[in-house]
């Protein structure tokens, strides 16, 4: 109003401009009141809001808008009059709705007359809610007639949303109806319940038989039980077999469903084989190829808050045991409360949740995620509609809502007192916009792009409302006018595709378009139902970046005919007609898979041994330990123990499982070699092993280090073991080593003093009852008679850190073996051997990279004659993502002065440090916290200094500045230069590392994953094995594990090379699983 001060900085106009209703004419509001019944206390989805459907209902070329209001009669249809002006034609159209509670909406040409019809879902059949789903058939004159009964789509139950698509490829649109549950979430049943039909809550699949929709749910293999808390639905060809698959997002403890289309009218729910975890409270979702690799990926929305003060007052301090008991023990798959970005690793075979590393996992109470290219740069961006009227999971509300009021409410028959609801804090938050980048990372642009104001947005769509080649956004809001967001970005080349399909599917639902342009490929499949309770236009939109044309556009129709358009001009709306399609599209011919680098040979090797992890939970013993340290095996050792010229190997056993020795047979197979001495020591957990000829008799003896983070110091099981090989294949335990009964983590062997006898370095691990103290490591020198004595070593080696890995190799080519160690809360450290003395080589660049290093391997990766260091760290796909500027800190103080160190991990945000864990977790061990901060809101958003003050000052915190895995290249003279692995190998902690040579290519093999963490941190499971080729510039190129032939599952702990009669093989040791074997696919 002319009051703007001239001092103000010019504010860049946001990419999206929210248009006022006075301009658009869209006054729709989804009104929800706290004071009505049903309310949030009797209907759990009372605040879920309504949906939006966008589509051109009168075929005038402009997309029109339909909004659902939850309350009866509130739905609205707006005709697009051009230039962002809309006319409310609800009354004339006869479409306001007569059901008591409306939910999702989708447009589709159900009767196939060339006009979009509208299908509105309803919740009915409980709480006196009446009505049924409505099918509004378009009369071509701006009016609609409700004809659901006639079509067989008048389902009455707890519907969320429908999708119309042709699942059996008979040319006609069928219907998947997603329903929601009202099953009590107070009692966790098991997955057996999936088999019990629930007529109101179970989802439905309908087959279109000549215009009538027949329920084929059961026959088609679709679950229809009360466990289906269905809030999200996406359909697309996830496995590239030409048939549409279904992904269902389920709220609460039921995991999401991945239905693979069997091509015969049935589906098989196959999530457990292809997904390692899901969002816990899955809401809306979207399926799209976000990284332009030709594979459909999935984003699922959850409700993890992003802001510290909200996050730390949000419920969810489940213990490791509680989580296991509620979720996995009952048969449910792992699931964590955060958005999941499930990257399709290839043909739907394996999905990796990269939401953490890609930066989209925490967007608070989220509903509609939509992947689309809003800035037309050729890379999809991400919109997430957000907000909840009231935060039911606020911990202060859960535990401290005034007792008198609760009592009053529970005892009164007149319903719920709004006073009780008033205590539930409001949850309006801004919606999120992330810009997609080439490296698969998303950048939060919410503010810059115009999503600044807190709101309550549920259903949402993108659509080019004014046909200017830029996607606009529309949201359905609770108690606020619908949001119409005009895209004002600079005009950038685009391509908009419409389709004319065959007679029964005129809009071409299910058609795929591959756009090749500027050296990259974009891929989309036409499916209208997206996000949450909403549906988009029957058009595909591609940004072309700086390119004025697409080199080619490949169209594949649902019946697998195709057409290839060349040199397609940018900036046009192109209509593609199926009549011009020809032939039969063969995916494998068009996108041929390269020959795999590796080939699995596990089934040719007859080893029945399986690692058996013992059931021990470190968190029960040390609740605040950063993660478990008891499940880090098995590691292996390789040597020719019987002098037959063939490698044999030893693999460590977990606690109460003996280690095992396998002798290679002449034909390249392996035979177990029973060793009573190993069995006798099975109570010890072997954490690392190495073969060495301790007594110089020419036969390798075996040293096994013991640990496991379970037993008290000085327990006899913690002593290491030296087994002497008698040359006839018998190993006997020797007493010639000192008996050090502490946790260890690593062992390495070399002739340190050049006396001809191998010496031993043993890396120390934290005390099982006293995490935090830097453990002691040892050097054991061979006295020349096979007897080992511990010798004094410099302090900087003795207390090098909480080690995880140690290796010897001659790094400086002086003929003396040097030592490299790595571990957690420390950098990789190099000790050069100066004529028998191990002297630490200080390297600022290396020292900066303190991390949570798990494994090192020494090899000349670049072939320059110098040994490099392969180093496996914790990876970037974590809630913890330290940087050199803001390292992770570990405070080790006895906060409550009870004689026990209370480890507190803190992370930095804008140079302020906050505890990683919440009040609930910390106060379990430190009740002092409760004494100081009774309410969660007193604790939330406070820095560690504010929380603990002077109690922290007794120790300097330990630091971790980088979680990136990579290679320290040896530049000579003791200098190393770090080069990080590509993002594909940063998806999880890496525990197994080795090198390979394939033809002319050299490369690195890696594997990892880790599950010994609190549910709040979430298991690391995104790695499926890494094959990285290293070129002359030391650049690394990764191959998708699905295509490399090195597709691993589970928690990899070691990768070892074994020379066999038939050539080199790679043995992969996996926690709690059998060993797998691979060889090069020559």
């Amino acid at each position: 109003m002319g009051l703007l001060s001239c001092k103000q900085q010019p504010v860049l106009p946001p990419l999206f401009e929210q248009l006022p209703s006075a301009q658009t004419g869209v006054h729709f509001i989804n009104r929800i009141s706290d004071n009505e019944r049903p309310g949030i206390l009797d209907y759990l989805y009372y605040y879920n809001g309504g949906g939006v459907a966008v589509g051109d209902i009168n075929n005038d070329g402009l997309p029109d808008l339909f909004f659902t209001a939850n309350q009866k009669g509130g739905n609205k249809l707006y005709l697009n009059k051009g230039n962002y002006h809309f006319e409310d034609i609800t009354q004339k159209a006869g479409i306001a709705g007569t059901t008591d509670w409306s939910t999702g909406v989708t447009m589709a040409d159900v009767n196939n007359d060339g006009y979009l019809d509208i299908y509105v879902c309803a919740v009915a059949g409980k709480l006196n809610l009446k009505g049924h789903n409505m099918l509004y058939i378009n009369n071509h004159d701006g009016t609609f007639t409700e004809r659901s009964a006639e079509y067989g789509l008048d389902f009455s139950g707890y519907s969320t949303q429908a999708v119309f698509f042709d699942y059996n490829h008979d040319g006609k649109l069928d219907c998947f109806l997603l329903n929601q549950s009202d099953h009590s979430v107070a009692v966790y049943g098991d997955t057996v319940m999936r088999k019990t039909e629930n007529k109101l809550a179970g989802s439905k699949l309908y087959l279109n038989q000549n215009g009538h929709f027949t329920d084929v749910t059961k026959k088609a293999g679709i679950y229809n039980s009360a466990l289906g808390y269905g809030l999200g639905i996406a359909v697309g060809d996830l496995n590239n077999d030409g048939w549409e698959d279904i992904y269902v997002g389920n709220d609460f403890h039921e995991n999401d469903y991945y239905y693979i289309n069997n091509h015969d009218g049935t589906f098989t729910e196959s999530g457990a084989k292809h997904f390692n975890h899901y969002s816990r409270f899955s809401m809306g979702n979207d399926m799209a190829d976000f990284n332009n690799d030709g594979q459909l990926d999935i984003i699922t929305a959850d409700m993890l808050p992003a802001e510290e003060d909200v996050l730390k007052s949000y419920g969810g301090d489940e213990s490791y045991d509680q989580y296991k008991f509620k979720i996995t023990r009952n048969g449910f798959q792992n699931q964590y409360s955060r958005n999941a970005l499930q990257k399709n690793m290839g043909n739907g075979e394996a999905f990796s949740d990269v939401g953490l590393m890609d930066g989209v996992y925490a967007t608070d109470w989220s509903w509609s995620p939509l992947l689309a290219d809003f800035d037309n740069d050729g890379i999809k961006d991400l919109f997430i509609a957000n907000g909840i009227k009231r935060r039911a999971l606020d911990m202060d509300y859960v535990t401290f809502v005034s007792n008198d009021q609760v009592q009053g409410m529970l005892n009164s028959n007149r319903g719920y007192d709004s006073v009780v609801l008033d205590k539930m804090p409001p949850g309006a938050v801004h919606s999120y916009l992330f810009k997609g980048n080439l490296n698969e990372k998303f950048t939060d642009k919410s503010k810059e792009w115009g999503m600044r104001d807190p709101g309550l947005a549920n259903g949402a769509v993108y659509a080019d409302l004014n046909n200017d080649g830029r996607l606009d956004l529309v949201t359905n809001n609770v108690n606020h006018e619908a949001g119409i967001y005009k895209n004002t970005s600079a005009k950038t080349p685009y391509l908009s595709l419409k389709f004319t399909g065959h007679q029964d599917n005129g809009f071409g639902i299910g058609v795929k378009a591959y756009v090749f342009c500027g050296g990259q490929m974009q891929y989309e499949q036409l499916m209208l139902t997206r996000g949450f309770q909403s549906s988009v236009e029957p058009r595909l939109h591609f940004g072309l970046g700086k390119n004025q044309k697409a080199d080619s556009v490949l169209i594949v129709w649902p019946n697998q005919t195709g057409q290839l358009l060349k040199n397609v001009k940018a900036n046009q709306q192109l209509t593609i007609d199926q009549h011009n399609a020809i032939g039969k599209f063969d995916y494998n011919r068009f996108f041929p898979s390269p020959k795999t680098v590796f080939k699995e040979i596990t089934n040719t090797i007859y080893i029945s041994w399986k690692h058996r992890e013992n059931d021990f939970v470190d968190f029960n013993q040390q609740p605040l330990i950063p993660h478990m340290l008891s499940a880090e095996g098995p590691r292996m050792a390789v040597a020719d123990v019987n002098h037959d010229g063939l490698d044999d190997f030893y693999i460590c056993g977990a606690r109460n499982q003996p280690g095992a020795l396998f002798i290679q047979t002449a034909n390249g197979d392996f035979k177990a070699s029973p060793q009573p001495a190993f069995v006798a020591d099975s109570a010890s957990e072997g954490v690392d092993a190495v073969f060495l000829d301790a007594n110089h008799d020419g036969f390798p003896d075996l040293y096994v280090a013991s640990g496991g983070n379970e037993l008290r110091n000085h327990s006899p099981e913690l002593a290491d073991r030296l087994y002497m090989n008698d040359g006839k294949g018998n190993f006997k335990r020797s007493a010639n080593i000192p008996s050090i009964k502490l946790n260890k983590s690593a062992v390495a062997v070399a002739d340190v003093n050049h006396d001809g006898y191998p010496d031993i370095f043993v890396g120390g691990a934290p005390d099982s009852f006293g995490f935090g103290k830097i453990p002691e490591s040892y050097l054991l020198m061979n006295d020349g008679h096979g007897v080992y004595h511990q010798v004094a070593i410099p302090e900087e080696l003795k207390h090098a850190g909480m080690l995880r890995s140690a290796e010897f190799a001659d790094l400086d080519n002086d003929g003396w073996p040097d030592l490299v160690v790595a571990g957690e809360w420390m950098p990789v450290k190099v000790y050069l051997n100066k004529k028998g003395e191990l002297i630490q080589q200080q390297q600022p660049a290396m020292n900066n990279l303190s991390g949570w290093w798990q494994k090192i391997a020494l090899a000349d990766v670049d072939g320059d004659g110098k040994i490099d260091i392969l180093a496996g760290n914790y990876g970037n796909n974590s809630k913890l993502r330290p940087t050199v500027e803001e390292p992770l800190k570990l405070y080790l103080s006895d906060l409550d002065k009870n004689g026990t160190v209370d480890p507190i991990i803190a992370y930095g945000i804008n140079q302020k440090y906050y505890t990683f864990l919440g009040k609930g977790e910390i106060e379990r061990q430190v009740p002092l916290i409760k004494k100081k901060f009774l309410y969660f809101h007193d604790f939330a958003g406070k820095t560690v200094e504010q929380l603990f003050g002077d109690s922290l000052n007794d120790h300097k915190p330990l630091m971790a500045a980088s979680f990136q895995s990579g290679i320290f290249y040896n530049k000579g003279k003791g200098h190393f230069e770090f080069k990080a692995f590509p993002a594909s190998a940063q998806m999880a902690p890496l525990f197994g590392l080795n090198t390979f040579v394939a033809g002319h290519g050299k490369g690195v093999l890696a594997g990892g994953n880790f599950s010994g963490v609190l549910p709040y941190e979430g298991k690391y499971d995104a790695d499926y094995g890494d094959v990285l080729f290293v070129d002359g510039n030391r650049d690394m190129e990764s191959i998708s594990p699905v295509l490399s032939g090195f597709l691993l599952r589970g928690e990899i702990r070691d990768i070892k090379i074994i020379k066999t009669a038939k050539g080199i093989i790679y043995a992969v040791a996996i926690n709690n699983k059998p060993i797998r074997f691979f060889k090069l696919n020559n």
Partner: protein
Amino acid sequence: MKPLLIFMVAALLFTSCKKSDYKTILHDPALYSRTVHELNRVVMGNNFTPVVASRNYAYATVAGYEVIAAGSPKQYRSLVGQLNGLQTAAKPPADQTIDYEYAALLAFCKVGEAVTFPEGSLKYYTDSLHNVAVQHGMPADEVHNSEAYAKAVVASIMAWSKKDNYLKTRSAPKFAINDVPGRWVPTPPLYGEAVEPHWGEIRTMVMHNAHEYSVPEPPLFNVTDKNSKYYHEVMYIKGAGDSLTHDQAHMADFWDDNPGKLNVAGHVQFISKKFSPPGHWLSIVGIGAKQVKADFNQTVYAYAKTAIALFDAFIESWTAKYTYNTARPETVINKYIDADWRPHLQTPPFPEYTCGHCTISAAAAEALTSALGDNVAYTDTSELEFGIKSRSYKSFRDAANENVWARFYGGIHFHNSCIVSNKYGKVVGDSVVVKLVMKK
């Protein structure tokens, strides 16, 4: 907070009178009971578990008692040398005038809030006590002396409390869940971690140690042999739950005493609270004291004796719980008999055998009978503020005996457990009665 409000309003009304009537107000035994009730509400508001609550009450009431024992040495004997580890307590300076009732109230509040509470939770209350003392004519030096003495006793009791292993057990290993049939696992809807698995390591007050009175083994888990004792127990409680009468349900609700019942409606969860079992019994002490017209000192004495019995009884029961780690009825019935069966009460998060409430009720009844007399008929109005009708009893032991059935009808404890627990609770209570010399 209604009682406090009334109290403060009363204080304000009297403010202008400037009469020297502070004794009328501060020496009223009902004021001590109201003060205990105030602590009870703070304990409840701050979500302490029943076991931890018993510790709050025990130290606070002992502090109050030590003050009146020092003030009336002819009537009451100090607990120094009688309770494990209590070697000394501050003595009142010989030449000073002290209002022992006022000091007892203060000592009770200060220890009460210092044991585990958010700092200053009862400051508003002690401040108003101070104001009452000043405004109602207590001489300034007497106010000062009384407060100084209370402070000294508080320091003695706190020093003693710090050596009871409470802090050390905060870092003790958690209860590990595994799949052994019949072993305790978390229960719906909270699925909470097992509460205080190391409470048996807390120093007892009167018992020599936690194992002094070891309970017999519970029936062996067996759901396959329909003639087994275990199976009978399971079917007995299931049958009872399936056919609860109105009075049985009322009985169960009356003794529910769940300080943190979780209500779940989808994403909405909230905890509703009642006084915990020890809180309920402290409330009964107040009712009983009023019933027998006990004076201030006897009231303080009754609270202390009962709270000591409650404290030791919890340790006794918790030791058994984490020796046997038995599953709750609902777990066993859901898994082997009826997946949909729900107990009438929400199952609290710790092992089933023995029954904590039955144990502590029996122990409290013995202590209370000794302090206030047998066959004291009373109506227990404690649960009115939680919307539950009162019940009447012929004696304190009568109430404890009813509790045995209440936990069974509540569907959370097998019948055998309740019987055994009542018996051993009596033993613990009796040991307090026999070993402690308090009233001379």
